[in-house]
């Protein structure tokens, strides 16, 4: 993953605040970010207020997620935006909004908690420190756990970079303690589970389209696409191998070794066995499909019979029997007897017990 910083040497973790008694664990902190959180932040960055007089165009918001029991692993699951304004000499964060929104979010996902905050520029200034201290404070923030600060650069035309920090208090002097802290970068990685893979694929399908819009396709279409892609890759490899054989291309030991070990994974099987298994399996599959469609037809028919023919009872009835007789020879017709309302539904009855046995 491009945004992951896996080769990260983490020498020491700063102790959060001064309360050493609470901080028993000095293991490094790892932050895992789920893609939906990043997408949320990017969406927020697109929807920011554009004002003439405001100095900065960054936006801020809170990170929500889960924390492992010992606090060394943090998973950012979602986030929400917080309105704020920044001017030359002051920053305003809507604290009330943050409180309400956090309550709302936690109501929907009670197992998660506030983790920290994000912003959309890499700049760390005294405002950052101020907000960081707010999020790390005991009453409004994540104390005793460190607050995480995630920065995502959203400059147009450049790569999107993510950085992750926690903070330690720095004592400049008593008056400025609130607006100063030491940011320490911590490793983080993007994490995407199997559940999101298919979603991400759909999202990524619109990547190279000019309109940035792509329709969601059916299973079989996407299968076709995957097969085409795989065939393309295989062709490329065999072209290379042929090139080596024809002495056009410089051979490479490592690549060949790799190919050998990959090819040796192919199972050795008996041709007749395969043929047999294949036939068995395909018959099963086609049978299921056939039965499913038969059931659909029957249910469809029963629905039609249920409502179709009350109006001209006599005539329709004859037609129905004929229709049914045509479809299946072995049907007995509707029972005799002149029960007005019940008549048209009688023909359904004899065939129903057959279905579950199919």
């Amino acid at each position, binding site marked *: *993953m*491009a*945004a992951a910083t896996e080769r990260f040497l983490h020498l020491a973790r700063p102790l959060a605040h001064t309360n050493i008694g609470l901080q028993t664990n000095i293991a490094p902190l790892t932050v895992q970010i*789920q893609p*939906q959180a*990043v*997408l949320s932040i990017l*969406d927020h960055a697109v929807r920011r207020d554009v004002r003439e007089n405001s100095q900065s165009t960054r936006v801020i918001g809170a990170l929500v997620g889960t924390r492992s029991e010992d606090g060394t692993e943090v998973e950012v*699951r*979602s986030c929400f*935006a917080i*309105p704020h304004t920044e001017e030359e000499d002051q920053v305003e964060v*809507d604290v009330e*909004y943050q409180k309400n929104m956090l309550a*709302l*979010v936690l109501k*929907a996902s009670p197992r998660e908690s506030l983790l920290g905050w994000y912003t959309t520029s890499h700049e760390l200034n005294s405002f950052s420190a101020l907000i960081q201290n707010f999020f790390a404070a005991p009453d409004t923030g994540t104390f005793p756990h460190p607050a995480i600060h995630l920065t995502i650069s959203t400059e*147009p035309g450049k790569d*999107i970079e993510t950085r992750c920090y926690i903070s330690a208090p720095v004592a400049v002097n008593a008056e400025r303690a609130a607006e100063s802290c030491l940011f320490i970068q911590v490793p983080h990685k993007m994490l995407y589970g199997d*559940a999101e*893979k*298919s*979603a991400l*694929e759909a*999202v*990524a399908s*619109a*990547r190279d389209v000019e309109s940035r819009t792509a*329709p*969601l*396709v059916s*299973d*079989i279409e996407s*299968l076709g696409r*995957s*097969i085409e*892609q*795989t065939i393309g890759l295989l062709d490329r490899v065999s072209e290379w191998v042929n090139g080596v054989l024809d002495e056009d291309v410089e051979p*490479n*030991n*490592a690549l060949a070794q790799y190919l050998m070990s990959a090819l040796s994974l192919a*199972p050795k099987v008996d*041709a007749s066995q*395969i043929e047999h298994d294949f036939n068995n399996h395909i018959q099963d*599959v*086609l049978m299921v*499909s056939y039965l*499913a*469609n038969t*059931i*659909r037809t029957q*249910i469809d028919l*029963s*629905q039609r019979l249920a*409502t*179709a023919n009350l109006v001209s009872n006599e005539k329709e009835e004859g037609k129905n029997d004929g229709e049914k007789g045509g479809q299946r020879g072995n049907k007995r017709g509707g029972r005799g007897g002149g*029960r007005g*309302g019940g008549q048209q539904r009688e023909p359904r009855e004899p065939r*129903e017990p057959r*279905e579950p046995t199919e």
Partner: protein
Amino acid sequence: MSTQSGVNLGSTVATPLSRPSRTVFEFDKMSEAPKDAPFQAVQIDALVILKIARHCSSTFPTVATGSLVGMDQNGTLEITNTFAFPTIDTSAADSHQNDASNLAAAAPRAKSNIAYQAEMIRHLKEVNVDANNVGWYTSATMGNFVTMAFIENQYFYQKDNDKTVALVYDTSRSSQGTLALKAYRLTNLFMNVYKEGKFTTESLQKSKLSFRDILQEYPLAVHNSHLLTSFLHQLPAPPAATEPKEPTSLSDLNNDRIKAPLYPSIDNLDLSIDPFLEKTCDLLLESIESHYVDLNNFQFYQRQLAREQTKITQWQAKRKAENAQRTLAKQPLLPEDEWQRLFKLPTEPSRLEGMLNAKQVEQYSKQVDGFTANISSKMFAVRENLLPQ
């Protein structure tokens, strides 16, 4: 953007002026043919897809539901954000599991959630998110979403605002490799019939409503912002067509493995989708079972009806004979229509359950078709691979 309706929960977008005209418009449409949908297609933001996928898979197998916000523009309904509904606390009321899932399925129209939704939309509005409710989403397992709860939820949303849609995310099928997300809306015809609440044979004949006309599917397209496109280009992509640097040793290759691209995904080349087929068959059998129950109900009703009718005929014959005697004896005649008071005909059971079941069966068998197409092509590929000519 056309004026959004004022009936949206928590929405304050609509101006007082736009409200009356909108109502008239809606009224007109209701009486028209079902063809005129208020929008032609649904466009969904990448963020929404991921949020839904995340939420639904985290609560699996319990049903997850949430609200969608967005706006409609030139015949396209744009869904730009979403949030989950709070889960119902099942541990507190240690009810039967069935009740719990029923509660979860009914969440979108629960009173507390309506308030939650209004509150959430009010907050989202402050950070420039589109503040119109445009529907709701639900999770499903192997397409088993056609239920009464689904219909009731969507009716609840659609009766106030025509431009709402229900997204169905199939958790089981999405884990197999391809995203299974669909957008549905109740047809206007069904809305009308449901409003009257009568699903007897007679009313269905009159309205010509069949199970095919309950839900209408809308084409879905995914949309990314510019910023997101830029981000996506940093994620693993298919190998470049240029010549790569040649590795010097095997461990070079192993250490620096190429990550599988997100698109086109290679996950759906996985060969084992038989369990899905099996599960669908189980569900299909369940449907048949419920069809059978429905049928029995109806037969019971018919027998009841027949019995009552025989009784009435008997009573009438008796009364007639009595009257004949009375005429002979020159006594005043007894009224002959008293049977209407004496006997009560049973009410016909609703046809809706049966229709939904039929729709569900159709959904399953379509799904089976899809699986079959997939699996048989994969199997032929495997055979060709293992048995070269």
